[in-house]
């Protein structure tokens, strides 16, 4: 029962690895890096009702919605007949930590074992789990992935602003496509050009800044929440598109914040519990490296001046301390209240907190902290929206509309 099919060296050549498309902007770049390493990968975009049905069938119904969707998406893909189960592998992220999410891979393996016993499941993790897998994140690969996240965040931020205000519909999307292709090519070729951040950041910013925008005033709506539901249109019922159609500007905090939140947890725990050791010191150095990269991007964004820079992570940490301890490291932990506070501080008063129905950490860090954040930011207008296979879109949208009505009143 506990044993599972390994992803072996031979399979690198023969197998196509299916990857659920969690962040539409970022994941294309990540895939290019995997391809450069010699893996055959394919992003899954299937999002019919069958995805949810397969999820319900294969996962305990009280498991969280992201697990249900991701596993449903895999099963739906395998059932479709498009992929030969003998030459297909599945990739899923594995975070570790006290949240249920660390069990996704096991739930997926259980489901796969029942239906396609020959299909291996690959773990994408940065903590050295599953060492016997032929899919490995090497140090140089890690660095490339980090840069891909930075570029992805920059593209996402620019694109979100431009598509809200663009005068000629479609320009922002075209610009996004252009840069995704260009950066994808760089990573796929294995070129070191991606290191020329100053030049590339600037070029991206200038390119997007050249798009003609209206100066219409729109309601800005921040999106925070559980990492998968926050970014994945499949999970959040195309929330960003809905906000755009309601005449709002979606403001989505960067993926790097989550990466850095995970990285900082590796050494803050050691500090909290008097448990410092060589490993935790190395992690801290790693964190500092990532932070220096974030600062570089922020600096260039500030200099260029057309787009609001990402939240400085050390600033987020300070903000968090007002509400909750950085000891809260399960799920998105202290990051959610910190992001809500940072959004409110930067004038994005309207915040949607997306969460899977019954998400355990979110009881504490999202609904549990809203009151305190509203007390400190009287204009904050926060709504928590639950996502779940049974929750209807109408119900969700109606609550968002209430939030928007509040926003218009202020």
């Amino acid at each position, binding site marked *: 029962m506990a044993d599972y099919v390994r992803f072996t060296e031979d399979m690198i050549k023969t197998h196509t690895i299916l990857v659920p498309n969690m962040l539409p902007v970022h994941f294309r770049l990540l895939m290019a890096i995997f391809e450069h390493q010699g893996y055959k990968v394919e992003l899954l975009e299937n999002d019919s009702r069958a995805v949810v049905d397969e999820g319900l069938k294969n996962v305990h119904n009280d498991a969280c919605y992201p697990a249900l969707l991701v596993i449903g998406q895999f099963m739906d893909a395998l059932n479709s007949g498009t992929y030969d189960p003998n030459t297909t592998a599945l990739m899923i992220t594995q975070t570790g930590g006290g949240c249920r999410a660390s069990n996704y891979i096991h739930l997926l393996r259980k489901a796969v074992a029942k239906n396609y016993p020959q299909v291996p499941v690959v773990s994408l993790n940065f903590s050295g789990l599953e060492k016997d897998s032929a899919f490995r994140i090497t140090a140089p690969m890690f660095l490339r992935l980090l840069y891909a996240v930075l570029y992805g965040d920059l593209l996402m931020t620019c694109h979100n602003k431009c598509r809200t205000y663009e005068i000629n519909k479609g320009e922002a999307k075209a610009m996004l496509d252009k840069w995704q292709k260009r950066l994808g090519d760089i990573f796929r070729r294995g070129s070191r050009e991606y290191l020329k951040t100053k030049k590339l950041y600037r070029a991206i910013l200038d390119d997007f800044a050249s798009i003609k925008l209206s100066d219409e005033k729109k309601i800005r709506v921040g999106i925070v929440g559980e990492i998968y539901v926050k970014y994945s249109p499949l999970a959040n019922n195309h929330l960003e598109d809905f906000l755009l159609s309601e005449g709002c500007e979606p403001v989505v905090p960067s993926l790097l914040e989550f990466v850095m939140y995970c990285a900082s947890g590796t050494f803050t725990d050691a500090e909290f519990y008097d448990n410092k050791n060589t490993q935790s010191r190395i992690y801290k150095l790693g964190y500092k490296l990532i932070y220096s990269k974030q600062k570089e991007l922020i600096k260039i964004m500030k200099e260029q001046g057309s787009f609001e820079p990402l939240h400085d992570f050390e600033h987020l940490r300070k903000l968090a301390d007002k509400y909750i301890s950085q000891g809260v490291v399960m799920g998105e932990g202290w990051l959610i209240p910190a992001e809500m506070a940072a959004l409110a501080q930067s004038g994005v008063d309207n915040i949607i907190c997306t969460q899977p129905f019954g998400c355990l950490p979110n009881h504490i860090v999202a609904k549990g902290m809203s009151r305190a954040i509203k007390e400190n930011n009287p204009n904050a207008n926060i709504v928590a929206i639950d996502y779940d296979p049974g929750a209807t879109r109408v119900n969700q949208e109606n609550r968002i509309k209430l939030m928007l*009505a509040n926003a218009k009143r202020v």
Partner: protein
Amino acid sequence: MANKLSLGIDVGSTTVKTVIIDSDGNILYSKYQRHLSRVKETVTDQLKLIQADYPDEEFTVCITGSAGLGLANSAEIPFVQEVHAAFLAVKNKQPDADAVIELGGEDAKIIFLTGGVEQRMNGSCAGGTGAFIDQMATLLGITADELDELSLRAQKVYPIASRCGVFAKSDIQPLLNQGARREDVSASIFQAVVDQTVSGLAQGRTIEGKVLFLGGPLHFLKGLQNAFVKTLGLDEEHAVFPEDGPVFVAYGCAVYAAQSGDSWHIIDILNKIKNAKASDDIVTGEPLFRSHAEYDEFIERHKKCDLGYADIRTYKGDAYLGIDAGSTTTKLVLITDDGRILFHYYSSNQGQPLDKIAEQLKTIYEAMNPDITIKGSAVTGYGEDLIKAGLSVDHGIVETVAHFKAAAYFCPDVDFIIDIGGQDIKCFRIKNHSIDSIMLNEACSSGCGSFIQTFAMALGYNIADFSQLGLFAEHPVDLGSRCTVFMNSSVKQAQKDGASVEDISAGLSSSIIKNAIYKVIRANSPDELGRNIVVQGGTFLNDAVLRSFEKELGRDVIRPAISGLMGAFGCALYAKERSTGGSALISKDELAKFAYTSRNIQCGGCTANCQLNVISFGKGRNFISGNRCEKGGGKAKKNNVPNLVEYKYSSILALEKTGQPVRPIGKVGLPLALSFYELMPFWHALFTELGFEVVFSGESSREMYYLGQHTIPSDTVCYPAKLTHGHIEDLLDKGADFIFYPCMSYNMDEGGSDNHFNCPVVAYYPELLLRNNPRLNESNFIHPYMDLNIRKNVVRVMKESLKRFNIKGKVAAAVDKAYAALDRYHRDIAKKADDIIRQAREENRRIIVLAGRPYHIDKEINHGIHKLVTSLGMAVVTEDSVASLAHTPKLGVLNQWTYHARLYKAAEFVTTQPDMQLIQLVSFGCGIDAVTSDEVRSILESKGKLYTQLKIDEINNLGAARIRLRSLVAAMEGSASADTGRRAQGEQNG
């Protein structure tokens, strides 16, 4: 210039309201009408009425309401969110109001107007309000208005779970079955709505000042009004129920419309609505039957499974009576010696099972040939105890046994039985001619059969007609499989999207089936169910449901023609087997004089103070319900079955009386909640050693829960966490200098697991408490982070946390004492478990490992389930007490939580002990148990043990737990007999 008119259209989940105002804001016209889910038609009808009065005027127009959004979009008419519309209406009509409470069909809303404007709405889980009341009224077999009238004559209020309609139903049903007065139940339903609004929506903000009450239910239902006014402590001046309450939001909508520019003639608006395209968002499935021929073949096939009949007037000889007093329906069967049916009855019990059955028994006695002798009788179902006591029925048997007997009569080789009744889904897998595993629906997906009925009635159909409609639907709607509240809104959405009643009827049938297969049985493929499947229960009389089941499984199943009567038929078979030649059943003469009275008293047997309902049948015969232990049941006999849950609970409680310093340096409060049920010995020793007086919060109770209810920010968190809020309030009231409640990501490492976390809720709940209880602050609520595995960390953190008491030097020694105390406690529990197991074996008792979390020993959390187990003669030990006796088995999941790691070990241990079984207690909303329960099940079942899970929440539904436990006992006995021969088979086929 003509007066500018504005039209507001409020399309709610159950009603349509229209209002016309003039430019001065005066209401010229208003109408309120139920739409019975025919949204577009009703709006059109109302507009036509307006057209007749205002054929030539132009209107500015706007739509609002939960069902109006889609319509507004597709008709290209402006839309305003309904809470905002209400806000506008209040600003115009009642500018001095401080707060507004509005209840609609499915939504509840609060607007705070003074002291920071805030508008709130219930979340997606909080069930309906108006629709909830309707559903409850249906359950009682009356209209909402009749419910209201009854409530005005109430004498007492029962606690009813208010979070969601399904839960409330589980609270109400046992009350009804136990004979509680309908007046009291009615009032309790309204109180539940009030509690939900006040706690779920206000979330800590006090509702005070002048409060405006809006919406249909609050306008029409006096009992609901009274409950709100009383709970909020308002006087007449401050509770305002405006004349135009039901159309108030539509008025606000008209006000909003008045601000917009474009205006149209009614005819143009009508056309816009008429031409509104239904969206093509709905997902549809295959039709149930492609042709009438296919349907006829289906009917023919199922006709074959029927019983013989005999005439009650002419038959002479022996007869046996079976009664199934189900949750919503009552079934009676009288059979002959050779299994032919003399009499049968199936009907809704309308909340009065005893009356219904007595009445039917009278009918039987009157019609019966004098030469018939009833030689035995048996009863099963929710109302078993009451009916058995009231009508002197010979045997009471558990439902699962009754159903198995009946199914085996039709299909001796049956592999799988699925019974969908009014409120339950029961499935059992049969192996070796005995019940091998039982699956019941959990609190969340219950209410299946009665749901279709409620829905049919809401649409204005009776259940039979409604389900017939679905048979030939061309595009059944896919409504998903989830709890009925969600299904309710899925249905609404489908209707809005233009699905026909036929499609919805078929969709509902299919949803119920999907719920059963994927949620209750949790099957991946039909093969898991076996070859010979018998379906039964009233819901399967519905051909559409039956067909959906066959389609989903891809195979034919057996539905006996007496599908709805199987429980009663099984009882009659049982009565026949066990007949001793006579029956004690109430006689015709006694029945003629039969009467009973019902009253409520409070049991004083112990501190639980259970609310008892006493039904007296005269001559000193009483039936008592509501008691959680045998004491209140009027039976003096003391239960001596050993019970570790009791022992652990009293050990923890007793700590407070020990070790207190003579001259304390301060008073620390420790909440009797969550991790404290495990670590109390540690913290108690630590603080008393440091010279603090230690006070615990009081024992948990419903009252304790209500005490802190207003500070709960997330109403979907588990009940054990929610109770913590009450404990904090209690400690604050007890005057502790500070409350100590540490945050702990990590639990103790007990070895054998991949990691040793706490669940996120246990780990970080103090953070939530601090931010949501305004009485707490950093100085009276000390909640440091620490890792108990690292002694030096505990010492450092405690020194820092207690700095102001100047006891730095004493901390290290006190921490050591604390570790020692915890260790002693663990050893004591292990020893006690050992004693219990030995004693049980000497007394030849079965042993149950009641496996949950440390806090499941809280009597408000477990609702006394452990006492139920011992009342069946089985000894009880706990998961922690036996976990160390086995190694962790190989697992298919990441084993990273300490409390949960114990479950796997305990399960593994049970598999090595022939006289033990495990029952897993799962708190509703525990996401982690979604991972553990499947794993515990597979550990147990891989070694031939039974898996029983009891889901517990704030509802106190011991009735369902009792059925599970008795079924477990029956199954254990069944498997015992299967080993030694085929006694079971002979019996069942008899």
